[in-house]
């Protein structure tokens, strides 16, 4: 089998196809640790934890995308990430996220049913993950 020289990277959310392009390397935050995908990677299925996907062209990071968990499928020529929510890291607004974290936490306190509580908890977790991602990867 010919060794492909690019990875066909696709990032899909339930609502639409977000990214579809040929890139040199992708670093995906897997549940068991980050993994880099280069052309010719062995087939892999992994769950993805909330974190940042780095897309490399050449040796440079071309795109940094925050994902809120999901799944990744890797074959020698392809890397597909199914994300629940995704947005470029640079578009995350720290203030808005902090507000939504506080909102979610107070909703959690006031929640009347288990369903509401679980919903608030999920939102809080998501906001926390965004904040963590921002902290670890300061935007210049």
């Amino acid at each position: 089998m010919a060794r492909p020289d690019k990875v066909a990277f696709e990032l899909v959310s339930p609502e639409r196809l977000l990214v579809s392009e040929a890139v040199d390397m992708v670093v995906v935050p897997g549940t068991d640790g980050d993994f880099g995908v280069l052309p010719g990677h062995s087939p892999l299925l992994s769950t993805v934890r909330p974190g940042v996907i780095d897309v490399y062209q050449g040796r440079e990071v071309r795109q940094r995308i925050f994902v809120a968990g999901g799944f990744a499928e890797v074959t020698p020529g392809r890397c597909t990430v199914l994300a629940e929510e995704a947005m470029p890291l640079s578009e995350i607004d720290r203030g808005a996220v902090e507000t939504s974290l506080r909102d979610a936490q107070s909703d959690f306190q006031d929640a009347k049913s288990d369903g509401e509580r679980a919903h608030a908890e999920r939102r809080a977790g998501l906001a926390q993950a965004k904040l963590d991602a921002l902290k670890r990867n300061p935007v210049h």
Partner: protein
Amino acid sequence: MPSLKDLRNRIASVRATRKITAAMKMVAGAKLRRAQDQAEAARPYAERMERMLASLGASQQTLAGAPRLLAGTGADKVHLVVVLTADRGLCGAFNSNIVRQARRLIQDLVNQGKTVKIFTVGRRARDQLRRTHRDRLIESLENVGRRQLAFSDADGIGRRLLAMFEAGEFDVATMVYARFRSAISNVVTTQQLIPVPLPAAGAATGDDLGGAVYEYEPSEEAILLELLPRNISVQLYRALLENAASEQGARMVAMDNATRNAGDMINRLTLTYNRARQAMITKELIEIISGAEAI
């Protein structure tokens, strides 16, 4: 014989109706386009998820301890029928067709001695099924995706179903919805949701893996445990999108027919009106002439 004034009034009112139906047709057309685009945009995710499930399922079928969502509860007693319809009418037989199919399914299941529970999404399903199956209806939602359907809407329903499944409230879940085929046709479809039917494995990935086998991180079971609930939400999302597109298509056709009917009716009424007017003039003339001759 209605008077001239009555006829004039009727013509005016049918004209007004035609204006409304014509406008509704245009609105439905615009919404249809949007719904179709949305359904189109959601397709890649569903396709890729199916591919993953297929490759996972191929190895899972032989495994004994498959998750309950895949293997079922081992019983086949309690069936949950999830009926998806629109909230609003004026879309021809769209809602009735779905409900009719659901009724048939429910009747079949009841005849087989199963316990049937009904979960409706959309006001029309609730209203129609409440009449005949009030005691079976356990939950109904409406105004789902009123403005625009978001994945979180479908996800909410999916979680609800999962919670009920975990609580042992049913063994098998089936949903009934209209699959979109074209603007003028849709097909009422019955699809099993839980236990998750596996897409046929085999040529699933479409990739040449060079004989290599997938590695799983953290493990096959862990991925499957996360993937299966998601898949239910994705299936629901897809069904809701298809339903929304079908609804708008059906409404467009219904309103087109209504507009045409109104046009025909206006023509007929106008003809009657003109005849009556002519008859009146003739009558008056005769009266004048015979009056003049009498002198």
